[in-house]
């Protein structure tokens, strides 16, 4: 690393896990999340010279988010293709997590998946990437009031979905 700017190799090695965490919450499944991370790493390599030392995770989260949003727009323009029935061999085994928390987590993931993408992005950047509202606004290029409203409305929708499912 020179002048606070990491090399692409360092990012791929040290931040793959962070990128995957954000990607998984956005994409909702392991396979799409892996594709998002791979595309994001390519963009990171191309864009690294524009990175200015600051919040590295914020910058990385923005790139993986942009890959996700581009993907969402592309999918809207073409018919969706169903997953092949034998895709389970690509799913990672949740060795560390116990069954109960994994089931709960999957339920939360399904609820997240049903949020509009803009809302999902705001909630994920806040909770997984741990960015503040103004940082998210800066990364997405929208006013902070918009970010606040998306997060609050997204959370309210999640709560309604999850409390409805529980009772």
């Amino acid at each position, binding site marked *: 690393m020179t002048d606070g700017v990491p090399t*692409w*190799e360092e990012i*791929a*090695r040290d931040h*793959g*896990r*962070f990128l*995957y*965490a954000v990607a*998984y*919450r956005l994409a909702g499944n*392991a396979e799409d999340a*892996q594709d998002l*991370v*791979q595309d994001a*790493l390519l963009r990171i*390599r191309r864009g690294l010279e524009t990175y200015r030392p600051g919040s590295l995770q914020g910058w990385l989260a923005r790139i993986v988010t942009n890959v996700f949003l581009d993907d969402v727009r592309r999918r809207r323009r073409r018919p969706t293709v169903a997953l092949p029935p034998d895709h389970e061999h*690509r*799913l*990672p085994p*949740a*060795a*560390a*997590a116990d069954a109960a*928390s994994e089931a*709960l*987590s999957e339920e*939360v993931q399904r609820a*997240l998946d049903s949020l509009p993408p803009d809302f999902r992005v705001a*909630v*994920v950047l*806040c*909770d*997984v990437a*741990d960015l*503040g*509202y103004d940082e998210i606004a800066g990364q997405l290029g929208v006013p902070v009031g918009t970010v*606040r409203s998306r*997060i*609050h409305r997204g*959370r309210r929708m*999640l*709560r309604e979905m*999850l*409390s409805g499912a529980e009772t």
Partner: protein
Amino acid sequence: MDCDDAIHKIYGFLDGELTVWRRREILRHLDECPPCAQGYDFEMELRQVIAMKCRDEVPPELKRRIAEALGYTSPEA
């Protein structure tokens, strides 16, 4: 602070977006109001579950893909 006010501000509270003074007001309300405290616990837990994937391991397949990309591009390799 009443319940409407507390609920309105709870997300900002969770996300660390409120001033110390506002945080203290909400905490005082949560101490006195079990229904709001329950709502707060739910939101807190939900936030943790969403963040939990951070502790998940990167799948071996992705590790392999990253290693492959590194191998192809590393000038020192």
